[in-house]
């Protein structure tokens, strides 16, 4: 896991665009439904998945997100999917005739399908957080009845994440400046972790005292005023209808049949 681009991705969530203004609850629900629709296809599906690229594409375009950012996250997530999926062509050798004289193993098709699903699902998650600031995302979760304890923890982690990552970077750099070798043996890494953890525990104490001083009553007020507009209903209905439509109506196949008549 790299620390790279988490702050960049985070900063995009605070933008202002058509996509950013949509109620986070609508976006969370729409994204969830989208992912369920994508993974519900049978394992050999390819053409049916294609129309689903419309949602991430539209979110990138209308949410002013750089495509590179989305691709970067997709690439980071692919190795595990490829590692597992690449066994499909090895074990599923049933031949599939694509056209006369061209035949491949069914496993390659299911492998390609897994890759497409991976790309779609990761882009859905990235475009969700790229157009929704994390506090707004937490507010949506709270409105959707996630336990308060979890919402509070998400908020606190988010607040101290960047601070502690910065400290870890400083610790790492301090070590590399004093050392000739790039390698960090286990023992040394443990000492660095202890130093970091020690500071973290101090921080926890300070944070606790500050919270107490402000009259903290076991529950962080993370809820921000949200108002559901007709546009939000429209967005949610659009994504839901699109997901259902493209899940059951094979657009790609239908178009293909119009051209390739055989």
């Amino acid at each position, binding site marked *: 896991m790299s620390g790279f681009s*988490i702050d960049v991705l985070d900063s995009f969530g605070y933008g202002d665009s058509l996509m950013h203004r949509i109620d986070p609850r609508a976006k969370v629900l729409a994204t969830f439904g989208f992912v369920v629709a*994508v993974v519900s296809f049978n394992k050999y*599906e*390819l053409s049916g998945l294609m129309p689903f690229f419309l949602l991430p594409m539209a979110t990138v375009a209308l949410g002013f997100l750089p495509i590179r950012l989305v691709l970067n996250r997709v690439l980071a997530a692919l190795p595990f999917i490829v590692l597992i999926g690449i066994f499909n062509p090895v074990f599923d050798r049933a031949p599939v005739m694509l056209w006369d004289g061209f035949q491949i193993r069914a496993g390659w098709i*299911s492998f390609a399908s897994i890759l497409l699903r991976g790309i779609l699902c990761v882009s859905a998650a990235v475009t969700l957080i790229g157009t929704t600031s994390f506090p707004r995302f937490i507010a949506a979760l709270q409105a959707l009845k996630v336990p308060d304890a979890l919402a509070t923890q998400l908020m606190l982690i988010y607040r101290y994440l960047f601070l502690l990552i910065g400290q870890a970077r400083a610790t790492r750099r301090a070590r590399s400046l004093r050392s000739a070798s790039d390698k960090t043996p286990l023992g040394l890494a443990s000492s660095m972790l202890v130093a970091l953890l020690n500071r973290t525990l101090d921080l*926890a104490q300070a944070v606790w005292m500050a919270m107490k001083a402000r009259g903290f009553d076991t529950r962080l007020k993370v809820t921000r005023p949200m108002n559901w507009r007709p546009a939000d209903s429209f967005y949610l209905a659009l994504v839901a209808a699109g997901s259902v439509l493209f899940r059951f109506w094979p*657009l790609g196949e239908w178009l293909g049949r119009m*051209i390739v008549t055989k």
Partner: protein
Amino acid sequence: MHMADALLSPSVGLCFMALSGGALVYSARKLREEDDERKTALMGVLGAFVFAAQMINFTIPGTGSSGHLVGGVLLIMLLGPYAAFITLTSVLIVQALFFADGGILALGCNVWNMAFYPAFVGWPIYRLLVSKNPSRLRISLAAVVIPVITLQMGALTVVLQTALSGRSELPFDKFILLMSGIHLPIGLIEGLVTAAVINFVFQIRPEAVQAALAPEGKPAPKLSLRPLLFALAVITLLAAGILSRFASSNPDGLEWSVNKVYGSGELPAPEKGIIARIAKLQEKTAFLPDYDFKSGMNPKQEKSGAEAGSPVSAGTSLSGIVGSLIVLGMVGLAGLVMFKLRGKGARAQKT
């Protein structure tokens, strides 16, 4: 070890979402009962620490590669099971959104594999090994043993979830050997680093370790066997699900005896009544109705992937490929139009 959306079926994903959601609600209630306000800040900051700790890479002895602390068991030892479960769940949500580790539907699976096991299986083991009076030796032992056990359980569950979802063709037995083999050294190294870190902490701040085991004036979270039994029941059910799959594709199971009785592999289906109706509904909703394409396929008879008997839907025949390309082109075009239409007014990035 993050499970990915791409390898999941909706039913497995939603099922684990419900299980993890249940554990979350249970933990939140237990945490409220513990009524230890100080933990709130500690949980949040330690959750952030997990991310920071992952930036400190170390060289794995004997190999050229490097690893980092995962931190699950460390959190259990400093927070107790319920607080640690909620903190680890938050960590996994942040990872799914910001780091593309796992996915939105896979979140339930990942919480189960990487937060539930350390918290609800690891904690009873920790209490058993360390009891109320921690010593360096006991803490170290627990720190090494728990990651090994909980990572193995997590790896096993990843295999079960993948196999039940049916998107990957990896044979169950080979996959289990692979995952278990990979996660054994990972667990050991995680254990060694956790032992070193928790021992340092125990020396300089014994109260931090003591606090989770025996909070002042309150009984420590007890050694409850219920969650452990529940976890084992879930694993057993999953394994049973997979085994029954094997059994059903194996002719010497129930079908074999039916075969002997009726002379054909299937019972004569009633033509009327509720069973017939259910069967019709099932035929309509099944993605792959009851045919065995792998053994039944003969390449010579096969003319086009679109024809019956092929495992692959019509979507992958030539017309399907052409159609896919057209749809992709249309999506790209729609994207271009949207890029043009959106104007230059709004700026997305905060400066």
